[in-house]
């Protein structure tokens, strides 16, 4: 599969201080919805700004559609739509006039104005000035602007920021539709995996400027499967942990319960027998699984 975006050894620091982006090798496959995850301050926005040429590249390379951004900036930007951080709209103009500004730049057909307004549900705003829109409406207008010239790649930085649950749901549906019906590759950043796990096909996790994970959502889910464990809840967890430890079954106590790695059926029976036969009451014996959010947290906290 070809990559819509590829960065090679991207490095960036502000005023020569600590590295904000550290040897970043990002690969966004064409046709994917790519979730770019990381906690606040991880370097997501800086990366996206580098991808759009808003920050001069200090070291490394950015390739979009197999062309170097440094030498083909204008050709690349003709095929890219973007929304970086807060909405970029002219508050004294109407939604249509806002789009008209960009229609002049991109020279796309006038019919696209009504089309994208309809897509984002703003066709009925008429003469209302964009400055009087709610945050959700402003966000949707920004999406409309980014879609106006029928881009092949959308770069969205936390597009659901400030949206209510209904707005988040609508945004998710819109992005899915753009990807499936129009084949647009979407790179979307977020600091919450739970917010985009139902949207993306691929994920990259960044922390302190370094890539911690990159791959398909399935690959991340398999990391989740590997992290399955057993839980024992007893009347004396310390004694119970000591008893099963003697039989080579390692574990730890977390949140008042014993956590061990997965065991065979025979091992589970042995552990249960050991606990009960030593007069300890067993309240619970169950399989546990980290949700994607905790895997995400584990990945970003691993080297902290």
């Amino acid at each position, binding site marked *: 599969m070809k990559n819509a975006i590829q960065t090679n050894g991207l490095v960036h620091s502000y005023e020569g201080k600590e590295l904000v982006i550290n040897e970043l090798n990002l690969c966004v496959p064409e046709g994917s919805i790519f979730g770019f995850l990381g906690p606040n301050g991880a370097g997501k926005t800086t990366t996206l700004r580098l991808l759009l040429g808003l920050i001069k590249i200090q070291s490394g390379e950015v390739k979009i559609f197999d062309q170097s951004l440094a030498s083909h900036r204008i050709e690349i930007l003709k095929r890219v739509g973007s929304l970086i951080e807060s909405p*970029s709209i002219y508050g004294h103009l109407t939604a249509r006039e806002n789009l008209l500004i*960009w229609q002049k*730049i991109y020279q796309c057909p006038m019919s696209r104005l009504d089309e994208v307004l309809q897509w984002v549900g703003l066709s009925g705003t008429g003469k209302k000035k964009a400055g009087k829109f709610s945050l959700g409406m402003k966000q949707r207008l920004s999406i409309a602007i980014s879609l106006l010239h029928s881009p092949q790649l959308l770069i969205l930085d936390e597009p659901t920021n400030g949206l209510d649950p209904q707005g988040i749901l609508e945004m998710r549906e819109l992005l899915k539709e753009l990807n499936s019906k129009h084949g647009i590759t979407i790179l979307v950043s977020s600091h919450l995996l739970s917010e985009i796990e139902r949207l993306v096909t691929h994920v990259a996790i960044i922390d302190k400027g370094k890539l911690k994970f990159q791959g398909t959502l399935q690959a991340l889910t398999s990391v989740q499967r590997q992290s399955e464990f057993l839980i024992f809840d007893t009347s004396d967890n310390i004694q119970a942990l000591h008893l099963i430890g003697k039989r080579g079954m390692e574990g730890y106590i977390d949140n008042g319960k014993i956590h061990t790695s997965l065991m065979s059926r025979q091992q589970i029976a042995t552990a249960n027998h050991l606990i009960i036969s030593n007069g300890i009451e067993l309240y619970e014996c169950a399989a546990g699984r980290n949700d994607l959010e905790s895997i995400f947290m584990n990945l970003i906290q691993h080297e902290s």
Partner: protein
Amino acid sequence: MITTFIHSLQSERIKMRRSAAFWLVVAGALFIPTILTIVQIIYPDKFSPLAMQGEYWRLLYKHSWETMAILLLPIGVILSTSLITQMEFKNNTWKQVYASPQSLSTIFLSKLTITLLMMLAFFILFTLGMLISAYLPPLLNGTNVFPSADIPIDLFVWGTLKFFVACLPIVAIQYFISMQFKNFLVSVGFGLVMIVGSIFALQWKYGYTFPYSYSALQFFEVNGNPRHPANISTMYWSFGYFLFFTMVHYITYIYRKERG
């Protein structure tokens, strides 16, 4: 390149619709003519005889430009130039502009051109306002004493064009400053301090070297009372400063590491 520039300029023109800079240009250009019109309507006996004089147009031109040239015009240029760039900061739109397929030079030039076009619109409106202030009062107060002399085209066209050139250094400097600072008050504050400086510069024999003083110097020259040496062309100085500050700005702009 030219086509892209025209498209960019068209987009800048749309941004001006109902903007603060647009209303400032309209209100600023019509302010003095409106006052002159009202005064002539209230005191027809005082002004009607003047209309019959051959010097009427020069007097009107002088009265109209008096306050405008020394104070209101530089303030208006400072405010409108700052407002035009500030619009992008205020609306958080610089990043969208720089992420669009336009060269940096196109963005720089189209912003500067729209500022100059707004200024040109100001001068055209102001001149039309002057003409209206001559013809409207006799119609409204019923005296029907219209100016008898021909309109001195050279004064109204060339004289006004010189005022336009006199403002170019202010445009270039304010454009430079307002692109560097997100805070609107920095560029406006700097501009206002420079205007005060220009008033002091008028008393100085080398005052013609001060880039904010050319509008006032032009006014004194038009009235036959020049405040600068006869062998000095303020137009050349003005244009020179404009080119110098625009070039310096362009170079620093092109080499900026971060945009938007």
